[in-house]
């Protein structure tokens, strides 16, 4: 009898379902924990301003801490577990490069976010300093293509196919969205085209197709 695999049993969730459940639990649970932490901090601050927490405050705070503990337990309890499996060297390399891309992308996103002068707009067109622009451009010009190329060399043909299919769908979306928005804008039906918004939409579409083809 063969060893069990994720697809050996009809009721076994797919890789994609497990990843989605983890993302939902991680993001949802994380937001809940941050919210509760904020509540505890706010209530404690208020209690201190009133002259220190009394017995009722203590009970309320204890309730909030208990709620946070329950949420944390729920995340741990319902976190989908998978069997530890051997990973091919090629896959390990691709994962490492993916981690490097995230390690570069997150600080860049944080940097752009904190230096954006409070426009509150996603992908703002507000002016930025020359230093920030130079850092971002160098990362996109050198690190982005380099990491993408190295990653492309490491992924297997199944993932490459999923990536190519996503690219094909994204390219078609781009060549249809762009002229439609351009024409609608000239007719006065839509505001002027936002290239970064189109880029975001196309990238999300690309990622969704890649994810579905790879994990479902």
């Amino acid at each position, binding site marked *: *009898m*063969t*060893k*069990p*695999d*994720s*697809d050996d049993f009809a009721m076994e969730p797919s*890789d994609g379902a497990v990843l989605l459940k983890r993302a939902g639990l991680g993001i949802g649970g994380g937001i809940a924990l941050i919210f509760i932490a904020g509540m505890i901090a706010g209530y404690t601050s208020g209690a201190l301003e009133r002259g220190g927490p009394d017995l009722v405050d203590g009970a309320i705070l204890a309730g909030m801490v208990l709620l946070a503990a329950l949420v944390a337990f729920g995340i741990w309890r319902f976190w989908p577990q998978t069997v530890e*499996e*051997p*990973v*091919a*060297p*090629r*896959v390990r390399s691709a994962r490492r490069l993916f981690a490097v891309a995230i390690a570069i992308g997150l600080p860049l996103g944080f940097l752009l976010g904190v230096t954006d002068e409070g426009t509150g707009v996603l992908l703002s067109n507000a002016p930025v300093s020359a230093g920030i622009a130079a850092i971002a451009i160098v990362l996109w010009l050198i690190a982005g293509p380099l990491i993408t190329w190295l990653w492309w060399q490491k992924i*297997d*043909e*199944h*993932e490459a*196919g999923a990536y190519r299919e996503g690219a094909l769908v994204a390219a078609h979306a781009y060549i249809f969205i762009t002229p439609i928005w351009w024409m609608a804008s000239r007719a006065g039906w839509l505001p002027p085209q936002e290239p970064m918004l189109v880029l975001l939409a196309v990238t999300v579409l690309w990622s969704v197709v890649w994810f579905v083809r*790879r*994990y479902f």
Partner: protein
Amino acid sequence: MKNRLKVLRAMRDWSQAELAGRLDVSRQAVNAIETGKHDPSLPLAFRIARLFEMPIEEIFDDEA
């Protein structure tokens, strides 16, 4: 294209991850081939055939 990959793997008592490691591909790739969602390239088909020491046409069947 139909294939006997899952049966051959079972005969050797390999998990998908073990087979993936031997072929240097991801487990998802093995799963996709076994379920017919992905047809392997010729180089990968040859690697599979060499691993199982069988002719390609005894593993993959394009007429089924």
